[in-house]
């Protein structure tokens, strides 16, 4: 029992999530010491608020990675589906439930996502190329065919955006912050995705396909259907993120979305999700997103100018990646010695020298 707990402890000590958590704490303490403003109620609420959309986007990136590979199309799926949902409300003068607005967006997202899924699953093309292509097409449709531009939101949507779950005011500074209702959507989505991935055969299939496609096929998983499903669902999730973003900002701006993918992917990778598929946790995804959100949101509190944030994000990504590389390297070493072929390490040296020559 004792050895088991120490083993578990060791495991959590070396896990990427743990490193990210340490970074978050260090950063928070640093900001608090410098400014005294980090652990204030309004800053914490602000952080949660700022996390909502990136965290939902992170689900899309995460699902792509664990099943297949990089997906960069979610920002434009979000842009296009929330545009169509908003237009639907504007044109029809729809006054009913916000849920219907979400459903319209989700329907569009499902269609757009299924296009990705179809091409990737059927033709086995690399997901990066496919999603890069489709997102360019979606962008063309949005800005070219629809000539989308800035829109004020119709009342149904704006009202939902103004509703708050929690409002706080910082007594000292007199600044208020509120947590929008979309926070519940974010939490709900994570619970659903967690349940599906961990407690259903389909969810385990996603990991199986990402871990070893051939093995999955031999075991009897429908690899193509799983990939198709993942990208289709991911389209729906992106659409939800799109509507959340739109209602939170109280207007629609088509150009706000593109470019978001890089930072989201960085957050997901930082959280320990593997580029080659099959490995990654939702916990890590959340932590990675939180870290990046703190950097973009709170560094300003210590007077670090906005353009330096990019510098910090870049640095954190490189450090984060370096940590996981070092870890897998260590793992590699210990694995080799477990095989009691202690010599292999020295033989790796031969290989390296042979290549240098």
């Amino acid at each position: 029992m004792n050895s088991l707990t120490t083993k578990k402890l060791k495991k959590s000590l070396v896990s990427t999530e743990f490193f990210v958590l340490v970074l978050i704490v260090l950063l928070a303490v640093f900001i608090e010491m410098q400014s005294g403003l980090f652990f204030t109620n309004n800053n914490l609420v602000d952080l949660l608020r700022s996390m909502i959309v990136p965290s939902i986007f992170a689900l899309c990136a995460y699902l792509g990675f664990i099943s297949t590979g990089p997906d960069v199309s979610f920002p434009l799926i979000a842009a296009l589906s929330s545009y169509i949902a908003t237009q639907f409300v504007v044109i029809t003068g729809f006054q009913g439930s916000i849920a219907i607005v979400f459903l319209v967006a989700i329907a569009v997202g499902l269609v757009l996502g299924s296009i990705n899924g179809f091409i990737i699953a059927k033709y086995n093309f690399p997901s990066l190329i496919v999603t890069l292509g489709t997102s360019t097409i979606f962008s063309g449709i949005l800005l070219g065919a629809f000539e989308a531009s800035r829109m004020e939101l119709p009342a149904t949507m704006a009202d939902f955006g103004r509703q708050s779950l929690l409002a706080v005011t910082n007594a000292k500074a007199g600044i208020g912050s509120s947590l929008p209702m979309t926070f519940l959507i974010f939490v709900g989505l994570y619970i659903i995705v967690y349940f599906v991935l961990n407690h259903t055969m389909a969810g385990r299939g996603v990991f199986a396909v990402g871990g070893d496609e051939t093995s999955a096929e031999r075991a009897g998983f429908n690899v193509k259907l799983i990939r198709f499903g993942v990208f289709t669902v991911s389209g729906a999730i992106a659409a939800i993120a799109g509507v959340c973003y739109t209602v939170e900002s109280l207007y629609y701006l088509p150009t706000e979305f593109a470019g978001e993918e890089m930072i989201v992917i960085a957050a997901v990778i930082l959280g320990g999700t593997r580029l080659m598929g099959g490995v990654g946790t939702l916990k890590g995804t959340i932590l990675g997103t939180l870290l990046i959100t703190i950097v973009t949101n709170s560094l300003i509190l210590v007077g670090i100018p906005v353009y330096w944030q990019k510098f910090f994000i870049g640095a954190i990504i490189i450090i984060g990646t370096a940590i996981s590389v070092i870890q897998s390297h260590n793992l590699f070493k210990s694995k080799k010695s477990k095989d009691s072929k202690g010599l292999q390490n020295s033989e790796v040296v031969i290989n390296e020298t042979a290549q240098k020559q």
Partner: protein
Amino acid sequence: MSENILSVKGVHKSFGGVHALKGVDLTIKKGEVHCLAGENGCGKSTIIKVISGVHKPDSGEVELNGKKYTSITPSEAIEAGVQIIYQDFSVFPNLTVMENLAINKALASKKKFINKKEFRRIAEEAVNKINFKVDLDALVEDLPVADKQLIAISRALLADAKLIIMDEPTTTLTKTEVKRLFEIIEDLKEQGVTILFVSHKLDEVYEICDSITIFRNGENVLSCQVSEMDDEKFAYYMTGRKFDSQNIKQNAKAGDSILEVKNLSAPGFDNVNFNLRKGEVLGISGQLGSGRTELSLALFGLLKPYEGSIVVDGKEVNITSPAKAQELGIALVPEDRLTEGLFLSQSIKRNINVTKLDELSSKLGVMNITALTDESKGWVKNIGVKTKDHEYPVQTLSGGNQQKVVLARWLATNPNVLILNAPTVGVDIGAKHDIHTLLRNLANEGRGIIVVSDDVKELVDVCDRVMVMQQGKIINEIASGDLNADMLSQYI
């Protein structure tokens, strides 16, 4: 009831222009361990895939348990009790042992939700079938290869396997692991499971199999009891060639000393002395961890000795790096060609020339393409790499031919002393014989050759004398006249 569990008749299978199976028959009796042998590319994996329903045969029939199928589907094969242990084991590296064991069964029973308790119960049942001790919560990617294989085997047993087909199960295992696998096979046999064991190693066939079928070029050329088998017959039917291993040592003639090692000590070995002469092939053997590999590394400048001296061509030298070793005319062919040195996706030509680029380029570093082409063509021909063209990527070659490319690369540096670490591991008989002959020829040209190996037959066939190492010390030296497999085996 028929006494044959499997009977394949007249199966043809082509892939595009490649006629992989040319009307093969294969009959396996219930309860036996049957070996399917043959050189790389002769169609072993293809027939397995026909039996398991992965490939549809162009013609011919498969009969399982007395039931005939013209083209069997994967699920029919599983229902009939056929389970395959693939060469790559078909496991999920990113999932736990428990999930790997239970997921197929859960999938087969069309479950929608995961029940962790049920999974654990299934997994425990599976590992208990072969008495396999493993942490069910460990990730499979963290396990050694042998354990991955055992996972595949216990998973197969869960599906009520009646015929387990193992595709070259021993290639990636250490000796102890092979022993354990054989114990499990014996145990399965006792439980009434029939085994089709694919291998091209004769000693394994003797040890574990009851009968054998040999394929050559997509045809079955021999089926018999293992008791009727011998080395010569095995090699002949596998390759269609007759080998005379006695003959290759005929012209052996040792000359002056070319490499002398005096009181050499380094991490891993202690106080080693030997003298290698021109024209001589010296074997160094011993178990894993006996110091044999370290010794070869020290001679190539990859391990720093803390005591003793090395004399090359009469001059005492200090080999501080591989570059220095090469300068002195020493080359080392590393053990694992796949991870150590071959660029699999690159052409044979590039792989051969990689050690020669400096020499065959102008001062400014521009490559002399004609010279490079000539060089590589020459080697492909000289050492008999079987390929249509030296521009083909190395991965299109069989294991033996890949090994020849590694050899060619180092030979291209024209070494006086050539050290080879396990030169024919995973190489089939024909290519093995070719490589041995090549080594003898190189020795006859006046080079000194060191073969580090634990393959007894190889040492006997190719070496003039063999030093046996144990725990970092040379414990015995056996000279040519006394060299035979039985006495060498005692030490290894």
